[in-house]
């Protein structure tokens, strides 16, 4: 579905992302993991058009997305959520989703309204559709991020740390919601996540970044055994000892 080829992002002398190539298969959930500062969020920003890559290219199917502004990437079908939730504070939950359905999925007002409600129901927020986002808990706002992104009718969903920061029961429910999004909404998903049990449960494939470079790629269970990955997370000495 989405293909990143040799992505590089330089900030002055710093290479935040340094030649990362990976591919997302249709219907797949791909985990993008790595320690803090590995370049996961920068990768996301480049895929979603929030920031243009210094080098490299991004494709959605045959369509090149490299350097498109965020709203064009979103309309093309690549929609992101935010690690720190960013609801539209002046709009009700329903209106939050309606905006996405109108602008991104290009539905008329009535159609957008219906579709937005469907997505709120999907995320378990229908009962609160006339509330403002401030009335929700953090887990609720993370669900809203999901519902709003799904209201764009995306082909690829980029989920930035949607599980981190909520309690274990909510994390479990959020994981189920992600799986349902893949199966029922027919989206392919790239997710970054710090909560490793969730990565193990949800992702068929993971890509590990460290200091901007891709250091491992494969099935989650196999990747976490690789010495380079253990070294990146825990340090060299431990990796040698293990």
């Amino acid at each position, binding site marked *: 579905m989405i293909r990143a080829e040799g992505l590089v992002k330089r900030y002055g002398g710093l290479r935040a992302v340094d030649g990362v190539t990976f591919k997302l298969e249709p219907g797949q959930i791909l985990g993008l993991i790595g320690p803090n500062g590995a370049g996961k969020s920068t990768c996301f920003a480049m895929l979603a058009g929030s920031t243009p890559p210094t080098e490299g290219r991004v494709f959605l199917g045959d369509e090149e997305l490299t350097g498109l502004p965020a*709203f064009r990437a979103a309309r093309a079908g690549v929609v*992101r959520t*935010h690690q720190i939730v960013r*609801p539209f504070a*002046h*709009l009700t939950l329903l209106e*939050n989703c309606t905006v996405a359905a*109108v*602008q*991104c999925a290009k539905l008329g007002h009535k159609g957008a309204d219906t579709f937005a409600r469907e997505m709120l129901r999907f995320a378990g927020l229908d009962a609160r559709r006339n509330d403002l986002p401030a009335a929700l808990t953090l887990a609720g706002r993370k669900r809203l991020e999901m519902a709003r992104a799904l209201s764009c009718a995306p082909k690829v969903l980029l989920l930035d740390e949607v599980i981190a920061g909520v309690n274990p029961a909510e994390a479990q429910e959020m994981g189920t919601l992600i799986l349902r999004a893949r199966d029922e909404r027919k989206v392919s998903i790239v997710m970054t996540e710090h909560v490793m049990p969730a990565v193990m449960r949800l992702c068929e494939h993971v890509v590990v970044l460290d200091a901007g470079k891709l250091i491992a790629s494969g099935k989650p269970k196999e990747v976490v055994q690789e010495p380079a990955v253990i070294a990146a997370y825990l340090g060299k000495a431990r990796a040698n000892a293990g």
Partner: protein
Amino acid sequence: MSMPSWAPKPWVLFAFAGALVLLALVPLVNSDAYWHNLFTLTFLSITAALAWNWLGGLLGQVSFGHAAMVGVGGFVAARLQVSSHVPMLVAWGVGGVIAGLYALVWGHPTLRLRGPYFSIATIGVGEATRLICTYWSWLTGGSSGMSIPVHPALKFQLYWYGLGLAALALIASFALRRSPLGLSLLAIKSDVDAAGDVGVSSTRLQDLVLFLSGMTMGICGGFYGSFFSFIEPGDLFGFERSISYVLMGVIGGIGTIAGPALGAIVFIVLQQSLIAHYSQLYLGLYGLFLLLVILFEPLGLVGLALRVMKKPIEEQP
């Protein structure tokens, strides 16, 4: 779902239609010039305050330079009528379009600034426009201004033109707030980057609403010229005029649908009742109003009304 959620409630429609009919009958019953002028001036202020609010309330970009478009529209319309004998309504329309385009010229780049940075830029734009247009006496007649001959009968009829304009502006405000465009503008106001991430093209929508706002201000300028038969740059482009639209919006309830209209009524009534005897005091009174609103009721008179009716804030009328 029998009625879509964005349709107005029936009682709102009835109240609106009723008020419109009553106001339309006033000049036939009472032809006193003082009241006639006061009402017409209020309609004009309502229109301008609502148009200011499309940018200041929906988009959250508070302009301290909206008099610039009133001036451009006013003087273009006046010049067309005086020098080329263009019919009044056509002149207003052309003045409005040129004012809207002028808003785009300075607004397209400055709308990339947000919040206070944008507001500061608009102060500069407003003052620069005033100075340039005062200097351009071929257009504005310089600091001595220009006269526009208006037939007395037409001047009497301007009451209904003003009522029509204000009604249109109110309907437009309602439609805008409930439309996908209005929702998208509020999304940009909340978080411009997050709006982009769900497909909102902020540049284009901001330009669109700026043009609409500027055009309406320009039409108000044209109306103003015809109503007073005389305009001069210091008044039409004045900073005080720009401030007055901010005050109307904030006192009435920034970002609400009808708030700025209420604010405009309060502003004009206060101005007319105080300016004759306490010409310095009334500005101080506005300052006091502004302080009270910002400290205690950020949604202005509308917020106060909602509180009295004990309705949740999100159900803005």
